[in-house]
Structures are given as C-alpha cells and as structure tokens.
C-alpha cells in the first residue's frame, strides 16, 4: 500500500509542484493520474520512486516513509518498482536485450536467469525477435515497449509509468494501455500518468485528476 499524507513539493526555484496531496493506492490497484502539463503528475510519481523528496508531508510505502530513506537504501526501494520514464531512457549504445539485462544485473541475478527473464519480458511485450537490435532502430511505440519490458523484467510489485502513451499514434497508444491493463490483471499495482484516461476506459481502476499541484477530482470505473 502506498499512502500520500498531506504531501507538498516545492522545487528549489520556488515552483510549487504539489500542495498538500493526500490519497492511498491499494495493492493490485490500477491508478490513473490525469491532468494538464505542469499539474504535478510526474512529481508525484518521482516521489514514490524517491527520485524527489517531499518538502512537506509523508509518502508511505508498506509502512515505510520513502522521503526519509537513507541514500544507500533508495536503490533497494527502486528495485521493487518498475519505472517507465517519460523519455524511455533506453541506452542507445546497447542492444534491446542488453537494456533488459541491466536491471537484472543490478539486482544481482545470474547471467543465465537474466537471459531467461529478459527473453520472457521481450515476448511479453511482443518484441521476441528484436533483442539483438539497437533501440534507435525501433519505432517510438517499440521503444516504449522495450522500456515497459525493462520495467517488468524484475517482476515488480508496483509498475509506475509517466505518460507512456505520449507521442504515440492512437493504435500504438491503445496497445500500450492494454499492456498495462494486462499487468494489472496479473496482480501488479499499476500507476500511470496520462493526458488521456479514455485509453484505459475498459479497465477497472481509479482516476485522480490533478491541477496545479492539487487533487481536484477522483473517479472510479
């Protein structure tokens, strides 16, 4: 369970990204965060992964205050999460397969197990035969799939995606949305920020709307 308790985040320049946000994410839930650019969606996701720390309030994960974690404990928190960032952050000088193996190496998996899991993840996102290619040779949608595969390769309990359907044409965007729904159906907690919650209209989940760092609306489908 993830709980935001009166969380505010002000950046060094003075910009207030989140203002007193409180909500709870239950285990196995599909949570959509919607809102315009600058609403605070990305900041909220970064707070869960301890990429940013709250200025006020607490972000609790399974009873642990994420904002108070020591620097050397943060990597172990992130290994439990599957993170998909807005710009993929794939390593362009490594093959797709090597990109997938990286988080497994970080987690200390054996080379054999890493190969097995990376291949399974590639199959899961429909890129079974593309492992040897460099990410730069793939389309935007395929790169997004590689990023998703990298996020699930460690079998995380929580999958966090920041605008995974941005810059994709509608068909690719719907495919990606289906992929997240399927992970959620398998019991993974999925938190997705999106401009277009309608892509997930077939899913059972909750949508939180943010505007200028404040929660304005909540909708359950």
């Amino acid at each position: 369970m993830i709980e935001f308790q009166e969380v505010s985040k002000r950046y060094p320049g003075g910009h207030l990204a989140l203002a007193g946000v409180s909500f709870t994410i239950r285990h196995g839930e599909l949570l959509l965060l919607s809102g315009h650019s600058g609403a605070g969606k990305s900041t909220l996701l970064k707070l869960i992964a301890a990429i940013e720390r709250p200025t006020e309030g607490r972000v609790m994960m399974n009873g642990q205050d994420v904002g108070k974690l020591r620097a050397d404990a943060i990597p172990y928190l992130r290994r439990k999460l599957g993170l998909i960032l807005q710009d993929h952050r794939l390593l362009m000088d490594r093959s797709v397969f090597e990109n997938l193996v990286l988080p497994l190496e970080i987690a200390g998996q054996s080379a054999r197990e890493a190969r097995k899991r990376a291949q399974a993840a590639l199959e899961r996102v429909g890129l079974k035969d593309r492992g040897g290619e460099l990410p730069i040779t793939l389309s935007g949608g395929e790169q997004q799939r590689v990023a998703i595969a990298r996020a699930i390769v460690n079998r995380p309990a929580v999958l966090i995606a920041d605008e995974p359907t941005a810059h994709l044409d509608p068909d690719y965007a719907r495919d990606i949305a289906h992929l997240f729904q399927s992970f959620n159906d398998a019991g993974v907690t999925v938190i997705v920020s999106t401009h277009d919650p309608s892509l997930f209209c077939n899913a059972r989940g909750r949508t939180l709307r943010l505007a200028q760092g404040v929660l304005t609306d909540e909708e359950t489908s």
Partner: protein
Amino acid sequence: MIGWLAAHGRALGQALRRLRRQAFGTLLSALVIGLALALPATGLALFERLQSLAASVNTTPQVSLFLKESSGRDDRNRLERNFQADAQLASVSFVSRDTAREILARNGLADILDTLPANPLPDGFVLTLKSADPAAFQAVADRYRADAAIEHVQVDSLWVQRLDALLAFGRTVMLLLAGLLGTALVIITFNTIRLQLLTRQEEIEVSRILGATIPFIRRPYYWFGGLQAFAGGLIAWGIADGLLALMAPEVRRIAETYGAIFSLHRLDLLQVTGLLAFSTLLGLAGTGLALRRHLRAA
C-alpha cells in the same frame, strides 16, 4: 561472498569490454604510464645493484704509506714509534715487499711478476684511522708525506664512501622522481576515468533509476583504472628490463677496468611485484579520486 565475487566478476567483464572497445586509447594511456614508470624503475634497480656492490667492498678508509727503496730497518722502527704516538690512528699493519708480491700474485698477476728481474714493490704500512672524516685522512696523509723515508702516500677506500654517498643520493633522486611520475600516473588515470564518467553519464543516471548502488556503478571503473595501470606497470617492466640489458655490457666493461666483477641483472621477482603493485595502486587511487570528484555530480 559468492554474490560479492559474482558482482566483481561482472564488473571485471564490463571493464574488459570497455578496454577492448577503447583498445587504442587504453594502449596509449598504458604506454604513457609505462614510460613514466620505466625511468625510476630502471634507475632504482641500477642504484640498488650498485649500492649492494659498494656495500660488499671494504669501506673502512685507510692510508697506505709506501717506503723508499733506500729506507732501512731504522726508518721502519722510527715510523712505528711515530705511529704509536699518533692519537688519530686506530691500527697499523706493516706489509713487506714480499707479502705485497704474494698478494699480487694471488690476484692473477703472477705471470707478469715472473717476467720482472726483481720484485719492484716497496715495503709499506697500512694505517687505519679512528675517524672517517676525510679531513683527518688528508691531515694524516700530509703529515707522513713529508717524511724522508716515504716515497708515496695513498688514501684508500675513501672513494667507496664517496661512491656510496653518491649512490644514496642517486637513489633518493630516483625515489623523488618515482613520486613525481607516480603523481603523473594518478593524473592520467584520473583524467581517463573522468572522461569515461562524462561520456557515460546517461548510463549512470539510468542505472541509478533502476536501483544500482554506488558500489555497483563504481566497480567497473575501479577495474578499468586498475587494469590500465597494471598494463602500464607491465610495459614499464619490459622497458626497464630492456634498458638494463642494453646497459649491462657497458657497465661490465667499466667494472672490469677497475678489476671488479659486476653485472646488471634483470628486475627480480620482488622488484617486479613492487613495480606492478605500485602502478596498480596508483591507478586505483586515480580512479578513486575521479569517482569521488565526478560521480556525485553525474
């Protein structure tokens, strides 16, 4: 423990892949390191060998007095009385001309001496002084040079002490040079790793987001810096051995002109181990400095 070893094995693999990808750059850096270390390594090996040679020579300075052929027993007795009264002398030994001939004959000059119609060597005294001060030697030599029975005065072995002092000085210079060039090695490695960190910033950031610990990120760089410096040490070993081999015949020829048997050897196991450990440790130090300086900012 197995996990720790596996992590290092993986980091070593990454470092080797990077070394292979940047083979030319790595070779150049290793060559620079090798050249920088070869000079002090050769110098230290040379001075160590010369110092051991100097140490094996009798370094107690002595003054030899050679008597005139015309001097007789009275002169010898008078001189012995003078020696007994001389407070600067620790001991005196008389070497007769026959004993001197025997000594020379034992040292391989028997054939030459046999060709001579008579023994050309004079009687002599060997004086050992209480003090090792060169000024005291000069004073004693001057005092007895004035004696009418004495043909020639020679100050022995002082050159060995001077040589020893010169060698000690040379060794100190080489150690200082090793320190300076070692600093250069640290800077070379620092710069190599700094450039790697800058070009791999994206990889480092992504690894951190994926849960990499700082040791996980650092390990391949330590292996890279250590291996590159180790390769530099190997090159320095090769150059030093080559230089010593090139110098050996000349040094042997010079030694032979002094009647000494002296040969330059290749670096021994201890010296090689020391050289490789020195270069590797400095490489690791350069890597550590670069990581401390740039990883936080990366």
